[in-house]
């Protein structure tokens, strides 16, 4: 239980995790579900429980596509994607927390790679 | 008197059918609002004579709020419409006399809106507290 981190996540995400009624619709709709160790509904619950460290150390935070399907379909207006974003930011803001470096780019880029892809990836994975 | 200690005197007129019941519901749900608000029960918001409000300010009230049923939901069909019209006139006259518009208010609170009642009262008390003491209409002869 890490209360400081919990408060930080709640503040930066602007999400009220207590509104969650545990229906699991976010996880029922998540396109990245299969890639994740912790799933959207667990993100919400684990933030409520203060288990932020586990989330920050999990690769799940890099699997969210920010597609907002969970936000759109949540019947309680919880916005799980914003939680994932806040946890990921907390992780990448740590020293050495970057998930993507400029050195990796040449191996990724091909002739058609849109600039948009690299810009967004850096914004998501690097601080 | 410093601002911190200032406790406004606030008179709330509540109609028996909606707003008084809404105030009761706020109590039943244990929703806090400042003790500065004292409620007078009237059968309908249209029972509130402008004279009552003038009297309150004369006797040193710092704010007066009138609560009735939502438009269209008046127990007596049209009473709240009368009240709304009368208060619009009265409040603009009071404003002219130097009683700030923020010291007077009309709100619609239904019997089911306990939470709204508490929110409205908290907000009103905050507004009036920020305005400070009302001296404009106070009749000093009424003071002991």
């Amino acid at each position, binding site marked *: 239980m890490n209360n400081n981190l919990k408060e930080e996540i709640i*503040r*930066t*995400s*602007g999400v009220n995790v207590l509104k969650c009624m545990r229906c699991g619709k976010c996880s029922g709709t998540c*396109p*990245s579900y*299969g*890639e994740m160790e912790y799933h959207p509904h667990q993100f919400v619950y684990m933030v409520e429980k203060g288990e932020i460290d586990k989330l920050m150390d999990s690769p799940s935070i*890099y*699997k969210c*596509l*920010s*597609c*907002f*399907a969970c*936000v*759109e379909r949540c019947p309680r207006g919880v*916005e799980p*994607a*914003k939680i994932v*974003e*806040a946890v990921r*930011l907390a992780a990448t803001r740590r020293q050495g927390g970057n*998930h*993507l470096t400029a050195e*990796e780019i040449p191996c*990724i880029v091909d002739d*058609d*790679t*849109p*600039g*948009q*892809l*690299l*810009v*967004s*990836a850096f*914004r*998501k*994975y690097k601080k | 008197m410093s601002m911190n200690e200032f406790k406004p005197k606030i008179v709330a007129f509540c109609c028996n059918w909606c707003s008084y019941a809404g105030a009761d519901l706020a109590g039943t749900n244990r929703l806090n609002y400042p003790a500065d608000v004292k409620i007078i029960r009237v059968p309908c918001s249209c029972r509130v004579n402008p004279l009552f409000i003038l009297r309150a300010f004369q006797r040193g009230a710092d704010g007066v709020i009138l609560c009735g049923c939502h438009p269209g939901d008046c127990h007596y069909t049209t009473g709240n419409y009368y009240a709304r019209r009368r208060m619009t006139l009265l409040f603009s006259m009071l404003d002219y006399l130097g009683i700030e518009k923020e010291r007077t208010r009309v709100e619609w609170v239904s019997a089911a809106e306990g939470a709204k009642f508490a929110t409205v009262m908290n907000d009103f008390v905050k507004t009036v507290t920020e305005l400070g003491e009302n001296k404009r209409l106070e009749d000093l002869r009424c003071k002991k």
Partner: protein
Amino acid sequence: MTFSYYPGCTLKTKAKELDGYARRSAEALGITLDELADWQCCGGVYTTAKDEIATKLSSVRALMSAKKEGNALVTLCSACHNVIKQTKHELDTNDDMNLRASNYMGCNAREAADTEVIHYLEMLRDVVGFDKIKEKVVNPLTGRKIAAYYGCLLLRPGKTMQFDNPENPKIIEDFIRAIGATPVIYPMRNECCGGYITVKDAEAAKKNSTAVHESAAGFGADCIITACPLCRYNLIKAESPIPVIYFTELLAEALGVK
């Protein structure tokens, strides 16, 4: 009609055709697109965190210069549209964001939110009108079965984007009808292509994109259209059996300005 126009970085490089066809079509439809002089990259994705201000400033600047021009701002790339529209919404609703953005910019940032942001498709629907487009079509794409691919950025979050029904949109379908083709409705049209994850996990992105083009092809589409360069890239990388092109290309073709 004149609009300020925000092309975005990719439209200047890998997605020149998205931009070029859009400009030519607009001209044919009597719309002037006035490119903002000093636009900067939107950042590609909107950061939802409340304490991220700097990443949103380029959008604030774009909104501000459109306001100075006195025009509504037209966007074309789904990502730019999403970022700028969400930034506008944040300025409109979040005092803290306003204050901090104003401090960065040295002006009242809220004013930027006065600028109306419309996507090129919304411009076609609401300003030009699909009926009008139908009249201007010289080369109707009769018989073509086209799948509209919305992806996520245009539609969500629905309350902020106000673009269309996020679960059952019809704007691109109406567009397809206007240019004489037949729209193909398929359930994956508003699901994510995999987005930026392709950088770190190409397989995962491929899984998503494959589901999209399989669904479209399964319902008999002979082509997929999109407004997003990244969606197009991902779908093509996932070996879509049917072509994936920008919607502006079809528009230009139908208007005879390709």
